């Protein structure tokens, strides 16, 4: 059985840990709200750019190198993770998904956003084309940099497809790793209209369909990455909020248990001392 002093030290160290986990929980809670707002703010843009792309592709004859389907000999995997751990299984779930994907596709090349992904996938020994920190720069700039790199490699023929593995923010409780084919671009599904017929407008394009397509497609890739960054970020905070809430609760439980043991030990010591004194006094009396 541990001595009183050992118990006291353990409780103190647990309290310190709990203080840290509680602080991290509160930070995550505060930041998740902002991340969620940013995610929501990006939605109108997502809808609008998706609709424009559909209109363009629907006009037919939409031809652009970024739309070109080639037989896949080299596949690019763009994995997004957090920069930091202490977020439960968040990073390992994403890394596992990417590892699995790397087994399914021919000649995987890795593009990594977030330092945790780099650490977790190092053991695969796959060619790593580029990596970026998730927090290394503001998201619009980061999205631009990532988009430029994968687009260039796709156009140069280094990779024939790029698949994005990132976290989808379903709710604070649920975050799911998802895969999206980034390149070649496939037009998003037409949202079915209430009256059952698709919207068809004879669009006019200025300066011409080709030029509009050439401007819109890179923007679409960039925005898809931007949106994935926002979702991954929000998911990270949500995962950390849950992990740290659990950690704080567990620390609390341990502290309670240990405090009980500590009090019992102390009481036992006191009782023992009283018994000794009383015993001693009794012995003196009778002698």
């Amino acid at each position, binding site marked *: 059985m541990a001595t009183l002093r050992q118990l006291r030290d353990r409780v103190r160290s647990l309290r310190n840990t709990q203080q840290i986990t509680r602080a991290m929980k509160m930070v995550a809670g505060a930041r998740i709200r902002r991340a969620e707002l940013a995610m929501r703010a990006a939605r109108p843009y997502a809808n609008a750019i998706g609709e424009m792309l559909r209109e363009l592709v629907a006009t037919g004859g939409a031809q652009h190198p970024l739309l070109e389907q080639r037989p896949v000999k080299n596949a690019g995997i763009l994995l997004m993770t957090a920069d930091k751990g202490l977020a439960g299984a968040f990073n390992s779930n994403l890394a596992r998904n990417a590892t699995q994907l790397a087994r399914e596709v021919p000649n995987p090349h890795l593009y990594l956003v977030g330092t945790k992904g780099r650490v977790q996938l190092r053991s695969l020994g796959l060619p790593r084309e580029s990596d970026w920190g998730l927090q290394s720069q503001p998201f619009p700039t980061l999205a631009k940099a990532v988009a430029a790199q994968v687009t260039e490699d796709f156009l140069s023929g280094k990779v024939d497809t790029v698949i994005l593995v990132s976290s989808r923010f379903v709710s604070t409780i649920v975050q799911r790793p998802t895969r999206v084919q980034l390149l070649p671009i496939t037009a998003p599904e037409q949202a079915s209209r209430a009256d059952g017929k698709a919207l068809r407008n004879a669009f006019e394009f200025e*300066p011409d369909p080709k030029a509009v397509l050439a401007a819109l497609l890179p923007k679409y890739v960039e925005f898809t990455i931007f949106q994935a960054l926002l979702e991954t970020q929000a998911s990270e905070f949500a995962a950390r909020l849950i992990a740290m809430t659990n950690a704080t609760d567990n620390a609390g439980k341990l502290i309670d248990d240990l405090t009980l043991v500590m009090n019992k030990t102390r009481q036992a010591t006191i009782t023992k001392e009283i018994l000794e004194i009383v015993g001693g006094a009794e012995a003196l009396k009778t002698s």
Partner: protein
Amino acid sequence: MATRFHLSLITPTALKFEGEVEIVIAPGAAGDLGVLANHAPLLTTLRAGIVTAGSANPAASDRVRFAVDRGFLQALADKAVILTDVAVAPEEVNGDEARGELRRAEDALAQKHGHDDGEERAAVAFARARLELIARPI
């Protein structure tokens, strides 16, 4: 009074403007264009510049102006959508910052000697648009 239609001005980070307007004037690929209600379906790229929207009367108090980066304009009979990376209202413009950016953008443009300078041209135009926005309020 002219017929109104729905306009949304959208950036990746915000819905900058949404409302019923009579006219939208935007810097189209083939020159500035004005869009009224019942426009034929149109999808055009936008240059960096100034977007004006509101009542057809230029002196009306409900006219709004934004400096926008390059983007896209989609017009339909009853709505118009403008997509751009950045849009700033006059009250959001920081004059010194915009002047600084204009200077840097102009230097960068000069370095390119006219080759593949789309980015730099747009940066110059966007900085100029912001300055124009605060120099000439509605």
